């Protein structure tokens, strides 16, 4: 033990012990990223079962019960298993490199917050083997419906608790690292946008995840210990769960998009060869979005029967989010303006992010208008909306980040041609997949149904075709990553991108075991703001 501590530079653990006991930010980052990639395919398989069943009306493959279980687990796995851990993985890798630190501030906590996750998901997925199977409630678990769940119920709730603990510990680590471990000269005004967005995201996590834990614990006591939080017969209110859940749920949405904003704010300036436009307003905008995220929750519940004052307040606060979000989009476009643009794979994904995330923003604005939401609520219009922000938003940014920093992580360039093929197939078919869902929702198709009236057949077929092509195209991504990680591809050098600025590019690729053993000194030129 002391041997390792004293000579950590030379004798860090190898083999399975390296991964199990790792306190190294890069190894833990890699674990997070591999885990989220695995979960992305697990959740993707659930989605493909859903899309296969919806290819035509009638039930062809699975029962209504199995279908609803698929939708529930698809959401839980994608949100807590794929998107969130992927962002944490990128943060683990990049935060110390970007602020000039040797590692994360709390390396043992870091190890623990990762290793909770595989067990949490093992528990969640084991519900398939239980009598009655996973919940048929959707990821939102609204009571009283969720209280009818069988044996799986406490397992799902405990799994959610574990995921929450993991997230909160990760957030504490991020805040501690950013506040305490910045290199000399890395002032708040020079902090890269990705670091800023993660700092704010970490505060959202600490504010939101415990609320989810409280909500699901109340479900647990209602079901097993005779309380009546959500049971009107005992003096409770089923709608109160929705208030508590969405008080977590809406900040959660921004937890999944703010780091994406950060990633795009790194990539667009690099490939425009021009500093980010409006650095300060970009930071203010992220902070404004984060603040607003705590006072808009009831726009998920316009139809539950709120007093008019409530509906008006949540309508106004919701559409107000369009302002800082608009500021971000305008600043990215202006960053490109009169730059010198090139279109390597990370830039393509970042540009697709701006275009397609904005479509999700538009539908979000429409959904924010309460009277019209009485028509949109709980339809495929909503499904289209949140998949535009989560798939072409969060996921596209994660893919962009992987292509952008993979040369740094592995020391080798990925296959650029394959990356572009992956991009174009994904960008086209993700729209084939999700755009028709706007039409389905407007034409009257509710979400979370295994079977539908025949007038919705055509758009569902098109959407399902898009889903299968988009899903299988992701195998190209895996192939490209594996190939690069195994040392194929040209050596990357310290700074593979001509227009890239920032501390991470001053280190060799891959970076040394303890990223910065001596703190670098940061000046304006390096910060590039």
């Amino acid at each position: 033990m002391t041997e390792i501590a004293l000579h950590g530079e030379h004798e860090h653990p190898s083999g399975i012990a390296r991964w199990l006991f790792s306190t190294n930010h890069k190894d833990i980052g890699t674990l997070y990223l591999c885990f989220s990639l695995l979960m992305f395919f697990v959740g993707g398989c659930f989605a493909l079962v859903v899309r296969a069943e919806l290819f035509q009306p009638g039930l062809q493959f699975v029962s209504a019960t199995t279908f609803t279980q698929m939708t529930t687990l698809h959401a839980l796995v994608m949100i807590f298993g794929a998107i969130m851990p992927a962002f944490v993985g990128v943060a683990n890798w990049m935060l110390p490199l970007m602020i000039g630190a040797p590692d994360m501030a709390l390396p043992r906590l870091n190890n623990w917050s990762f290793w909770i996750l595989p067990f949490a998901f093992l528990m969640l997925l084991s519900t398939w083997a239980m009598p009655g199977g996973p919940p048929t409630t959707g990821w939102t678990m609204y009571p009283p419906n969720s209280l009818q769940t069988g044996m799986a119920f406490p397992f799902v709730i405990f799994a959610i608790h574990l995921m929450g603990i993991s997230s909160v510990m990760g957030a504490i680590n991020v805040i501690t690292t950013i506040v305490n471990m910045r290199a000399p000269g890395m002032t708040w005004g020079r902090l890269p946008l990705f670091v800023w967005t993660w700092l704010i995201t970490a505060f959202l996590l600490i504010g939101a995840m415990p609320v989810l834990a409280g909500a699901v614990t109340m479900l647990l006591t209602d079901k097993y210990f005779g309380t009546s939080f959500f049971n009107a017969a005992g003096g409770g209110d089923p709608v109160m769960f929705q208030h508590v859940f969405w008080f977590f749920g809406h900040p959660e949405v921004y937890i999944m998009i703010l780091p994406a904003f950060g990633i795009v704010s790194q990539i667009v300036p690099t490939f425009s060869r021009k500093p980010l436009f409006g650095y300060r307003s970009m930071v203010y905008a992220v902070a404004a979005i984060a603040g607003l995220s705590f006072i808009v929750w009831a726009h998920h519940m316009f139809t539950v029967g709120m007093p008019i004052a409530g509906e008006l307040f949540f309508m106004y606060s919701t559409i107000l989010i369009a302002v800082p979000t608009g500021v971000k989009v305008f600043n990215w476009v202006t960053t490109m303006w009169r730059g010198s643009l090139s279109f390597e794979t990370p830039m393509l994904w970042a540009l697709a992010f701006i275009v397609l995330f904005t479509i999700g923003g538009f539908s979000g604005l429409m959904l924010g208008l309460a009277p019209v939401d009485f028509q949109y609520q709980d339809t495929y219009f909503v499904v289209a909306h949140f998949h535009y922000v989560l798939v072409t938003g969060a996921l596209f940014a994660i893919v962009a980040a992987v292509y952008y920093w993979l040369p740094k992580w592995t020391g080798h360039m990925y296959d650029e041609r394959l990356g572009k093929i992956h991009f174009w197939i994904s960008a086209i078919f993700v729209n084939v997949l999700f755009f028709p869902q706007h039409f389905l929702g407007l034409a009257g198709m509710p979400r979370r149904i295994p079977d539908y009236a025949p007038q919705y057949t055509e758009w569902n077929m098109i959407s399902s075709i898009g889903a299968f092509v988009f899903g299988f195209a992701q195998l190209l991504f895996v192939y490209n990553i594996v190939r690069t990680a195994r040392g194929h591809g040209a050596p990357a050098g310290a700074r593979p991108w001509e227009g890239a600025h920032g501390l991470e590019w001053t280190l060799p690729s891959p970076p040394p075991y303890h990223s910065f053993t001596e703190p670098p000194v940061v000046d304006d030129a390096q910060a590039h703001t």
Partner: protein
Amino acid sequence: MAGSSNRWFRLSAVAASLAAAARPAFADFETGLTPGVTTTSHEIYWLHGLAYWVCVAIGVVVYGAMAWAIFHFRKSRGAVPAQFHDNTRLEIAWTLIPLLILVVLAVPATLTLIRMKDTSDPALTIKVTGQQWRWRYDYIGQGVGYFSSLDQKSVDAAKLHSGIDPAAVPNYLREVDNPLVLPTGRKIRLLFTATDVIHSWWMPALGYKVDANPGFINEAWTRIDQPGTWRGQCAELCGVGHAYMPIVVTAVPGEQFDAWLAKKKTEQASAAAAAERQWTKEDLMAKGQEIYGKICTACHQANGKGIPGTFPALDGSPLVNGPVAGHMDRVMNGKPGTAMQAFATQLSDVDIAGVITYERNSWGNKTGDVVQPSQVKAARK
């Protein structure tokens, strides 16, 4: 104000229906929201259009600028990067202009919302009750109330591997046995509640959906402009039968509605009288099979085996094969904390007597018991 805005909404509705008529060949590739058949739905449709075109306009500016930049400022065309990175006036402009646009959207939305909340002075009040998985409509103060369940043809075709082509079933998953009948031209107040879990009553033609929460009552109102039949369905995930609780509204002119209501009232009175007489076992079994097929199969399955781990089997069940009183108590009062509801308030004496008789003499259950409606009536006291 109200008059002139009404005219605008009517005009836009006429324009929308013309546009819809112009492309009947593409009826199945439906892409748009329905303008609906009430003032409220027209206003919402108009707001939807306004928000949509605002988004299109912003999209043209943003995507246009992006496309211009992508085309003109390419490195491959020899573009040299400028180094500007700040402009406070620009930042203020693109904060304030979107704010103004939001005000333009918020004002009509607020007015519509305020109008929608005014449920005063209705000519008729109807209570809508959601339950797993059908709707019940009660005409308050009229002595008329009935269930509205998915049409049997859809039920058969909707089974896994049913072998029936849904396209061959008229209004597949959008047809009910008893539609909600409403008069045109009268202000109708709708009250929404539920007996078990949260449901959501969505009728696109009326312009809204309202959640039906167990233990609470929500309200809304409508005034339908024209006679016709419109379809919708439950919009809040309410368990495995969520896709199978459609809503059908039939609007008829006032006199026709009054006649229908009077006829319905007489029918329900004579049905109550039927509970008084002695029923034969065959009649009760037939009634029981009908009710079981409509209500009980969703959980306990047609073969009485239930779904292991979720819904208990009735075939061979000790409760069903035990004393009649225990069985009757479970059906009438339900089992708290499970999907088993208290059916005493939902089913008639004849229905309950039939279903209990049916369950005690079906599959492997051979108790030979016959339960009379009069016994059920007595148990209610």
